[in-house]
């Protein structure tokens, strides 16, 4: 029995999990995320520049195994792709790969240990990762103390960079509270929750909503913001529920809906927490006429993609469904990116491949700008960190042009709106809204 076949079988399935939001690759292209090799560590032809320059490393810190491999592997591939496309004269860049999954799920202490390991290697100048916000909480103190810049392609919890729930993000940076060593290219959850409320009230035109969450960081975060903003717009939240993420039987929650007179359901969470099952059980009980909204945790591919929200929700369940993606729909050269990715990894890019690509571009630009003539690794690491932490620098990336603000957040505050399209059985782009001018709070 060829063991690789088993791996390939598993690789045809997608899953978006954890506390995250979709990056910017167009949602229809977020479909298949391979678990299959090549892993970047094994295959990255990183910087095959013939002229041997100074050897430096870029770290990758993502969940690569277990149920989270579909999150980490395509994201890591984005880094390898960027390194194969862009060279920095005078430097030979290789990848140092770490995995923060333990027993199949992301594990904060493992992430912190990995970050230590990367920091201990003086030639590591920059880290792409992590994927999950809870891992980031354990890593930010380490990267801050080591002065090693990390760029997360996927973290969306506002509290990592901004005051959130009354907690100052400086508590995450006890060593150097005013030094930024963590930036991210994904938009925060608060914008998505607000966008969800905007869709429910203004696009779908509904006034009373049932709001549930999967009791996880991401789901509860966007559901709370949805509830606040929906009420602010003039709507009523008829019931606020929390449904544990391990639930498989949603029938009683769905049955309870009938007595609530809700004309909209907003559910914060991801497909793997059972949102698709909830929607299919709504259809089983003839409630599919009530529109269903969610964040980018459900915008994970068309109905043809196995295990995607639309697939699990089923033929009757997926109508009347709205989703948001925390990023611009119109990204430059999306088709080119997809075909490059396919050429290198024989698979479609994942939801965060482009974001990881953009993070790598940030690093490469910084290295180009500050790297000339510097041979001391510690100085180089600090120079890269300082460059990226400077809000004045802007980057022309796979996600479009952006810069990082003083907190380390991306200047791109765009949320794209999607709705289910019955003819293609996939998500259809409605519009995108820029939240820079009218921030949520």
């Amino acid at each position, binding site marked *: 029995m060829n063991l690789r076949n088993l791996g390939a079988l*598993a690789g045809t*399935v997608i899953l978006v999990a954890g506390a995250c939001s979709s990056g910017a690759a167009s949602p229809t292209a977020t479909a298949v995320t391979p678990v299959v090799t090549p892993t970047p560590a094994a295959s990255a032809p990183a910087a095959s520049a013939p002229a041997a320059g100074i050897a430096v490393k870029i770290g990758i810190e993502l969940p690569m195994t277990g*149920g989270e491999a579909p999150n980490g592997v395509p994201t890591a591939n984005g880094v390898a792709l960027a390194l194969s496309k862009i060279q920095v004269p005078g430097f030979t860049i290789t990848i140092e790969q770490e995995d923060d999954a333990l027993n199949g799920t992301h594990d904060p202490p493992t992430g912190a240990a990995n970050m230590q390991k990367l920091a201990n290697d003086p030639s590591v100048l920059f880290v792409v990762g992590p994927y999950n916000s809870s891992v980031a909480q354990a890593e930010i103190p380490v990267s801050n103390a080591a002065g090693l810049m990390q760029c997360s392609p996927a973290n969306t919890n506002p509290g990592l960079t901004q005051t959130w729930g009354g907690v100052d993000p400086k508590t995450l940076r006890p060593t150097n509270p005013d030094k930024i060593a963590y930036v991210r290219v994904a938009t925060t959850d608060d914008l998505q929750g607000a966008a969800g409320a905007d869709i429910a009230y203004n696009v779908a035109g509904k006034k009373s909503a049932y709001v549930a969450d999967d009791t996880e960081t991401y789901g509860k975060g966007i559901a709370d913001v949805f509830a606040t903003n929906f009420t602010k717009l003039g709507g009523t939240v008829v*019931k606020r529920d929390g449904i544990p993420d391990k639930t498989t039987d949603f029938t009683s929650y769905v049955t309870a809906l009938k007595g609530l007179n809700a004309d909209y359901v907003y559910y914060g969470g991801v497909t*793997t927490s059972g949102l698709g099952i909830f929607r*299919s059980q709504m259809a089983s009980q003839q409630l599919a006429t009530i529109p269903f909204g969610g964040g980018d945790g459900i915008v994970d591919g068309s109905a043809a993609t*196995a295990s995607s929200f639309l697939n699990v929700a089923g033929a009757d369940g997926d109508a009347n469904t709205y989703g948001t993606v925390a990023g611009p729909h119109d990204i430059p050269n999306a088709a080119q990116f997809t075909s490059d990715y396919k050429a290198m990894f024989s698979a479609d890019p994942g939801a965060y491949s482009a974001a990881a690509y953009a993070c790598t571009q940030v690093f490469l630009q910084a290295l180009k700008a500050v790297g000339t003539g510097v041979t001391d690794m510690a100085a180089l690491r600090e120079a890269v960190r300082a460059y990226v932490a400077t809000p004045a620098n802007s980057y022309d990336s796979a996600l479009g042009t952006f810069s990082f603000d003083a907190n380390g957040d991306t200047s791109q505050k765009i949320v794209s709106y999607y709705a289910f399209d019955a003819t293609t059985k996939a998500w259809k782009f409605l519009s995108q809204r820029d939240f820079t001018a009218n921030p949520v709070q």
Partner: protein
Amino acid sequence: MTAATPSVARPRMRMIPWRAPVAVVAALVISYLVIANAAGAQAQEQFINALTIGALYALIALGYTMVYGIIELINFAHGEIFMCGSFVAWWLITTMGFTGTIHDLPILVIVLVVVFLVSMLVMGVVGVIIERFAYRRLRNAPRLAPLITAIGVSFILQNLVFVGISNSIVKVPQLIPFDLLQIGPLAIREINLFVIVFAVALMIALQLFITRTRLGTAMRSTAMDREAAQLMGVNINSTIAITFFIGSALAGAAGVVQTQYLGNTVFNIGFQSGLKAFTAAVLGGIGNTTGAAVGGFVIGFLEVTSSVYGIGRWSEAIVFGALVVVLIFRPNGILGQQLADRA
């Protein structure tokens, strides 16, 4: 394993106290009232939801309690057998080419019989194999050794499915219609009716098997005192193997029910469902098959009730909290432990 005292030959059937039916009716009425108090117009529907999910937990709990009764092992791999059963159902249904509800009754019956039989048979055999290779050698080892291999086996099964089939939720076509049936004052969906009737029928069959057949007697005597049973001519190894077969087959059936009632399965449902089923077994009185069934229904009721009262967030804490409270006041579970006391 249901024998109360060894001196009575066929204790169960003769000794059903007159109180039993009264207690069942009283429990049903009280739980209905508790649900109705908060569910309003959906009271009846929610009550049926509770019975249905309870029936599913009960089916899994039976296997737990049978294995525990005979070799005193908390078989943590049992939940994974349930999960594998659901994947067997998924594979059969999709291979046969069905994509949705079957409205033609004869075809539906045939397909269901095939799916249930195959899944139960396959999982029964898997259970026997697991017992043979992972537990039998450890029968005289320290009590915790087989517990660790059980968890090891559960890792193996879960990851075989994970690597070989799917690493996420798999949609399974639901063959049984969801149409509402009106039976007198009772409105019930066909699927719910099927699950409840099917599970109760299996439980009754199991009860008859254990109390009325030679094999059942062998199982009970092995549970009570292995050495003595052996002296009386019971083949211990095959009796234990049969217990594993039946318990695992029931889990396989539960796996099919899961796919048909909830329409999906995933590689990691085994652990959580197994944990709840195990809780059900203990709640009812471990080693006691009737108790396992009762425990399953109690847990289904607790879950639905917490959702109806809007505290679904806390449902796990409520289930396990109830377990702790029940055990404090009734240290041997609701119906009591009915296997020989071997501490």
